[in-house]
């Protein structure tokens, strides 16, 4: 059966942001360019603009994440929207209310936008398919599937420091298998024309046929980091550190943790990124995280502007 890309409306405009996969280059660039203007706003004394005045944005977090939720909240507030935070991990879902019932109830409260975080891959797609037209859905992370705003803010950061995507070598390092961030980064990087995207991880942390996503696979940091311009570290979840995926955090750090010594294998002007929160001493050494090649804090700052841009573009695209 023919399914229209569920992110786009009938006119091909962005209706929901669910994944970076399949988004046209022009749309990615439009988001990045718009974000540039919002960076200007976030640098002013008065950081608020009236663009989304009167709109209601519901932060629907079925999986708790104070950090991500806060960045969306700040972005929405700077656009003058009303933000309602729902930490459903501890409310309705534990009472057994079905996911879409929750969504229906909130839609009845005249929501204009849902920002959704859920532990199941595909949850944001399900909600986007279900809501009445006119309501926009932003995927703030679904299972191991996608985290498009994180990937977009990463692209924004890369463009700020490296200016052009067409001559870069980018390495994504760590738990690719479970990472929604990595998947969204890979799709965004390849669409933006990065000629060489690498993934570096032990085989237990790589999904099958990952090379079909357009990446080169490395298992050895010494080889994988050679001549790299951008290093994108991934967070290693606590529960993966020991057991069937990895023997121990110590062994992982020794072979895949980013230290100054390993970083020296990359290009001298390489930048180091991390989506946060970091496990210092597991995937990244403090000396690198706080070092002069680290752009981890600017990522956080740009994250607000990118989310403002996405919220504004979606709101401006009526169904």
């Amino acid at each position, binding site marked *: 059966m023919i399914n229209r890309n569920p992110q786009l409306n009938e006119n091909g405009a962005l209706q929901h942001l669910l994944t970076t996969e399949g988004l046209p280059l022009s749309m990615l660039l439009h988001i990045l360019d718009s974000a540039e203007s919002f960076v200007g706003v976030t640098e002013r004394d008065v950081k608020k603009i009236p*663009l989304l005045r009167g709109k209601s944005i519901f932060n629907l977090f079925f999986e708790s994440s104070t950090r991500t939720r806060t960045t969306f909240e700040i972005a929405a507030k700077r656009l003058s929207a009303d933000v309602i935070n729902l930490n459903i991990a501890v409310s309705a879902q534990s009472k057994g209310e079905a996911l879409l019932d929750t969504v229906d109830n909130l839609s009845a409260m005249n929501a204009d936008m849902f920002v959704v975080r859920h532990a199941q891959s595909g949850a944001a797609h399900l909600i986007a398919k279900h809501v009445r037209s006119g309501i926009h859905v932003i995927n703030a992370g679904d299972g191991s599937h996608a985290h498009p705003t994180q990937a977009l803010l990463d692209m924004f950061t890369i463009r700020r420091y490296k200016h052009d995507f067409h001559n870069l070598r980018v390495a994504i390092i760590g738990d690719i298998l479970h990472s929604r961030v990595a998947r969204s980064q890979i799709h965004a990087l390849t669409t933006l024309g990065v000629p060489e995207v690498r993934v570096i991880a032990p085989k237990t942390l790589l999904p099958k046929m990952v090379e079909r996503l357009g990446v080169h696979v490395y298992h050895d940091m010494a080889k994988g980091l050679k001549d790299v311009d951008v290093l994108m570290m991934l967070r290693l979840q606590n529960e993966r550190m020991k057991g069937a995926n990895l023997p121990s955090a110590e062994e992982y750090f020794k072979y895949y943790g980013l230290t100054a010594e390993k970083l020296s294998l990359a290009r001298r002007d390489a930048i180091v990124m991390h989506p946060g929160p970091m496990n210092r001493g597991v995937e990244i050494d403090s000396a690198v995280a706080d070092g002069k090649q680290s752009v981890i804090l600017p990522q956080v700052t740009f994250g607000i502007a990118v989310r403002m841009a996405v919220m*504004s573009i979606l*709101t*401006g695209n009526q169904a």
Partner: protein
Amino acid sequence: MQLPDAEKVFNSLARKIQADANKDYALVGIRTGGVWLAERLHQELAITKPLGILSVAFYRDDFDKIGLHTQIKPTEIPFEVEGAHILLVDDVLNTGRTVRAAINELFDYGRPASIVLATLVDRGGRELPIAAKYIGIELELPDEKMLAVKLGESGKLSLNLYVKNSTE
């Protein structure tokens, strides 16, 4: 319809401001046409404060209808707005809504001592209580026609009429 020569209108506008220039104006152009005018005025009036540029896209009241489609270039205000006498410059004054958005945005940068408005063309049709202090020319135009200032390759300004919603 025969439109006046934009360069002549501009010169007349510049003279009017010059004749009245007893204040140390800070110039702010509204994107996009207003910026070209403001740049020319900035030179011609030899204004010392750096030129400000406003992109009112984030302050428009018709965002729901038009969306965030076009490329938004950022606002740049490279001087202290607090206490400044601001001369706001736009190409065409019509409903007054763009100027309303621009004033709102300026106030998010600080509290200016005063704001006055200069426009190349005032075509009437106001929907808000807004008036320009300096006007290049007043024109009466049919409602369905859009008027815009263009900047030619030679750097010369021209006035252009086109039908609303056309791709022109």
